[in-house]
Every structure is written in C-alpha cells, then in structure tokens.
C-alpha cells in the first residue's frame, strides 16, 4: 500500500498543468445563426440582449514538463469566423498530438450570444449548458449532460448523459439514450424519447408526449394533455390539477401507479392484458381485474389507461409524499 501511495505521489509530482485563457468579442447582429463545435470540456452558452458575441475560454493542459504543456496550450485555438449569416465557433486541437509527454487537455468555453440567435451546438466529453436563447436551439452532445434553461424551440440529441430542461417554451424535442431526462415547468409542445434511463417531469403544460424504454417515468403537477408511454419500466402519474385535460398512459412490462387527487374531477377508463388492475377508489373493475372505468365530479381530465404485461394501481393518495421540483 505504501509503495502504491508513494508511486502515486511521485507520479503526481511529475505533472505540470498549464492554464491559458482566450477572450474574444465580435459583432453578431440579431437573427444571425451561431454554430458551435466543441469537445473535451464544458460549453456554456447564454443569450443576452447585446448584439455582440463574447467568448471566454480556459485551456488546461497537463504534461510531464512545462515546455511541452505550454507548447500544446499555445496551439489550441478557438476559431470565431463569420461566413454568410452564420457565426462559427470551433475549438481546434493541433493534429499531431503525441500521447507523451502531454497527458491531457481540455477547454471550458463560455459564450454569450444574442438571445434571438438561432443556435446549433455540438459537444463531446463535456457538459453543454444553454440558457436564455430564444431563436431556437439544436443541440447534440455525447458523454456529458445537457442543460437548457429558459430557452425556446429546442431540439436536443444526447447520448451517454442526462438532459435537464427548465422553463422551455415553444417546442421541445429530446432524443436521449443512456441517461435520464428531467423536465421542469416546460410548456407548449414537448416530445421526449428516452432509452436506458428515467424520465421525470414536473409542471408540464401543453401537448406533452413522453416515450421511454428501460427506465421509469414519473410526472407531477401536469396540465394540458399528457401522454406517457413506457416499455420495461414503471410509471407514476398524478391527476392533481384541474387544468389537466387528457392523460393517456400506455405501459408494457411495468407497473403503473396512478394517483387521483381528491376534489379534482376525472373520467377514467382502461384495460390491461396479462396484468391486474387494482384500485382503492370506487371505480368499476371487472372480475378478471383487466378493465376499469369510473368518474368523479363533472368533466375533468379524460384518463385512459392501456397496458400489456402491466399491473395498474389506482389510488387517491400517493404512497409516498411528493418530492416537489427537483433540480440539480
């Protein structure tokens, strides 16, 4: 053990980290597109009322000696070029990087763009955070999380990371695999396709479609029209807001827990194949436990349940307390 600790100490002692900063500012009139291509590091983009684009970057290079680390840090560049009506921001690394003596390098970029800009951003091996961009966002990220805060009209493709969305308006399309999706106060038109992870939505409003595989889906405080389809995972949904007009729940190979709040009207119907429906409410469940229907009050949310190899449990109070809005 001592040898291991010593060798780690010695190894750590031979490393040198060089930090270099880059700053740049260019005119970027409103309505212009911004395309950003980055990898190895975090990329944070925010919208502002200014008609300028501002970039601040921190380059970190770790090597076995200062000279080689500095040499590489000096060669890493972030190109900012305007072509036609598009501002390109591209991180480039020198082509002939020797694995040794340079050990690692990464660049964290902060970019401020006009809030009306149309944004396309790609990143890999780092997080991608975008806030306040209203001109539309097309984001792609691999091996890192994506965060969207107060943006409008966004299309997100993510692999091997989580997607967090807060207060998005307009449309939102999320295609995620190998990670979780968290939606908070997202409104208008939402479509999420997720695999190998969980989906959690709070305060969703509008026409919302959540499609998940191999993970659980949980929704709270939903309004408008919500469709949840889940395969090979559980669903937990609430009818607790009278502004929820439709709730469609489709499940294959899972368990569904539906919570109907008291005093909130609803009309409910559904069936399951190779499963059971149980309820603590005065709903009509057939003898086989495969069909259910009932209502409470006048009007209210139209709730439709459909399951294959799925059990449904319908109750008026949740088993566990609501966990409120979850943010990272």
């Amino acid at each position, binding site marked *: 053990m001592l040898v291991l600790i010593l060798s780690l100490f010695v190894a750590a002692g031979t490393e040198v980290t060089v930090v270099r900063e880059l700053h740049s500012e260019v005119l970027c009139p409103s309505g212009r597109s911004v395309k950003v291509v980055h990898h190895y590091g975090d990329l944070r983009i925010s919208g502002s009322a200014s008609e300028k684009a501002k970039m601040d970057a921190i380059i970190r290079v770790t090597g076995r000696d200062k000279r080689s680390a500095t040499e590489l840090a000096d060669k890493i560049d972030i190109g900012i070029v305007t072509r036609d009506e598009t501002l390109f921001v591209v991180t*480039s*690394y020198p082509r002939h990087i020797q694995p040794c003596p340079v*050990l690692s390098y990464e660049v964290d970029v902060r970019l401020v763009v006009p809030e009306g800009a149309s944004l396309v951003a790609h990143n890999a091996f780092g997080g991608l955070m975008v806030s306040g961009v209203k001109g539309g966002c097309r984001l792609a990220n691999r091996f890192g999380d994506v965060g969207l805060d107060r943006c409008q009209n966004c299309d997100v493709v993510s692999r091997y990371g989580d997607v967090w969305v807060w207060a998005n308006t307009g449309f939102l399309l999320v295609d995620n695999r*190998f990670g979780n999706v968290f939606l908070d106060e997202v409104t208008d038109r939402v479509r999420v396709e997720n695999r*190998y*992870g969980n989906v959690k939505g709070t305060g969703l409003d509008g026409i919302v479609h959540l499609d998940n595989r*191999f993970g659980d889906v949980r929704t709270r405080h939903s309004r408008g029209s919500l469709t949840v389809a889940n395969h090979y995972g559980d669903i937990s949904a609430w009818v607790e807001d009278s502004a929820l007009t439709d709730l469609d729940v489709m499940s294959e190979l899972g368990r569904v827990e539906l919570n109907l709040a008291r005093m909130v009207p609803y009309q409910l119907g559904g069936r399951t194949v190779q499963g059971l429906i149980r309820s603590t409410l005065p709903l009509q469940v057939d003898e086989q436990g495969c069909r259910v229907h009932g209502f409470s009050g006048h009007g209210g949310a139209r709730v439709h349940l459909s399951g294959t190899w799925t059990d449904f449990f319908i109750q008026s109070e949740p088993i566990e307390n609501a966990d409120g809005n979850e943010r990272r």
Partner: protein
Amino acid sequence: MKQCYSDEILSAYLDHDLEPEQIEEIGRHIEECSGCRSALEQITAIRDAASSLEQLEPCEKTWFEIQRRVRKGRLKRIWVWSGVGAAAAVVLVVFLVRGRPVQVPETTPAPGRRQVEAGLVQEYDDYMRGIDKAVEECKTALSENPHNPRVQRAYLEARSSQINALDVFTSGGD
C-alpha cells in the same frame, strides 16, 4: 486558399454529417490542401484502427442462459445506464410479471409473449450495440487525450456497463 478545417469538421465531413454545400466546399478544399488531406487520412486511420479493436461478444454460455431464462418464463427488464456522474450502472432486473413466474405452458405460449421475448432480445442487442459504440468512441478519444479525466470516466463507465450487462445476463440477474 481558404483556412484549413478542424479535425471535428473533417470528422463530420467523413460522416456526411454536414450540409451538402459544406461537404462540397470541404471536398474542393481537400483537393487543394495537402495538410487537410493528411489530417483526413489520419482520422480515417484512427477510425479503422478503432473498428478493428477487439469486440466483446457474448459467449455461447451467455446465449444459452438467455434462452434458458426466457423459456422458463422469466422476462427481464434490462439495465439502465445511470448517468449523473455515477459509476457505470448497468442494472439487470429479473422481471417477474405480477411478481411471480408466469404460469404459461411452454408448448402453448400466450399470444404476444413471443413478441415480448423477441422484443427483449432485440433490445438487448440494441443496448449492447450502443455500449460497444461508446467504448469505441472512448478508445478513439483516449488515443489522442489519454489522461483526460472525462474521457477516462466515460470509458470506464462504458466498459463496466459492457461487462456488467454480460455478467448479469449469464447469472440470470440472481
């Protein structure tokens, strides 16, 4: 001559992951620029090398176990890549419909059951392909940025997921 293109753009060019006019423009540039031609050759070489790396294939025993468990009526809910910076978490949960093995005679399977089983096997394939791709991408990244902690973490997660998925399958989730 126009400014040279970054590896990222050249890589996207190889994938045809650009607008048609960009592909045309870059193609013209490459014809004139030996530096970008050389870079493109390097990217291609790295990709070729990555694709020839050893693939982790399920052994016969694994497939035997999958078939055996499926025949026994134990449907599986497969793994989740737990993101959020956690270590690789590939969770295979043995899914027992209604909490118990389904009592369906093997000779007369219930309608839809075969489809479910076939779907699960297909999902397993898709999942493994996704993980294999992650491993390959991480290897490529490690070849150029070997000690980058993000890349290392991603590689470890992907590799662990790959191994765990096979391991849990062979053990039947027990």
